[in-house]
């Protein structure tokens, strides 16, 4: 009985990095597809960064969007974090990590920009201290 339960547990939980397939062919295909997509996205962002063909103000946005897409590709094809029901724990941990990352980066940028905006220019500040 306990063996059976253990067996079913193995089906219900997935370690991060685990894959559904045990055979070599589909697993290899997964990595090849992941590598292809990653190379495509990387090449696109290097191309976009150095080109005059696209509207200039859109370039930073495009680079960030491409980067996020590529991180998604890496998560799915290399780290095998998926939305499957057996992957819930891993996805929840990832979600919490992302929340902290956005709080740290967004919060720092916001607060420091605000401080910068409200601070006197440096030369005036120096004069006040004399």
């Amino acid at each position, binding site marked *: 009985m306990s063996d059976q*339960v253990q067996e*079913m547990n193995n089906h219900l939980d997935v370690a991060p*990095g685990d894959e559904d397939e045990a055979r070599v062919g589909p697993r*290899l295909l997964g990595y090849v597809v992941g590598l292809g997509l990653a190379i495509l996205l990387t090449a696109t962002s290097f191309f976009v960064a150095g080109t005059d063909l696209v509207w200039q103000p859109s370039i930073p946005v495009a680079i960030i969007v491409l980067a996020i897409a*590529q991180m998604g590709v890496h998560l799915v094809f290399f780290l095998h974090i998926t939305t499957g029901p057996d992957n819930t724990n891993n996805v929840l941990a990832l979600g919490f990590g992302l929340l902290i990352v956005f709080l*740290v*980066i967004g919060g720092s940028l916001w607060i420091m920009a605000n401080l910068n905006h409200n601070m006197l220019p440096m030369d005036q500040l120096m004069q006040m201290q004399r």
Partner: protein
Amino acid sequence: MADTTLAFAHGDADPLRLAGESVVAHDGPAPKRIVTGYGFWIFLLSDIVMFSCFFASYAVLVGQTAGGPRGSQLFDLKNVAVETGCLLLSSFTCGLASIAAGVRSQRWFQAAMAVTCVLGLAFLALEGREFSGLVARGAGPTRSAFLSSFFALVGCHGIHVSAGILWLLTMMAQVFAKGFRADVLRRLLCFALFWHALDIIWVALFSVVYLLGSAV
């Protein structure tokens, strides 16, 4: 409703399978493999949170060049593209090593890990050359707040890659000496996660630091 009573009458205790999944999911501890992988995943996320602090300080300080050179005057995108290619391919060969470990093939595993190691070392060599070039041009970490945060961020990733290569060599030796034992396979799972996560951080790095830095 009629169906339910009928099912009860036939002796099926849980006709709607209400208890099915929850009962099994909470029965006993998860296997060690799952627990190890999950714990290491938590560590990786905390590592990513730490990197986000370096990213935040870089983003805040990127304009504070103190009259020194800006990113667009310093970065060599060709070098960065080659570095990126090295890391991407090494992530792929690391995946091949996981597959080889899955089918217990010592020869393919050692070959894939060796290629991963060489690509990782090539990345480190390129990064070291870039850093020493910057220092030689007088753009070392002491030049401005921008360069301090740049060296801290990129250097932190480089240190992670160095540690990853030491771990990689350890795993090659362990698999060679002990074979594909359950505990060695768990360590391999963690190593593969670590190496792929480094690649994710590098994606953020080359996009935010190098591509955005040279575009502005």
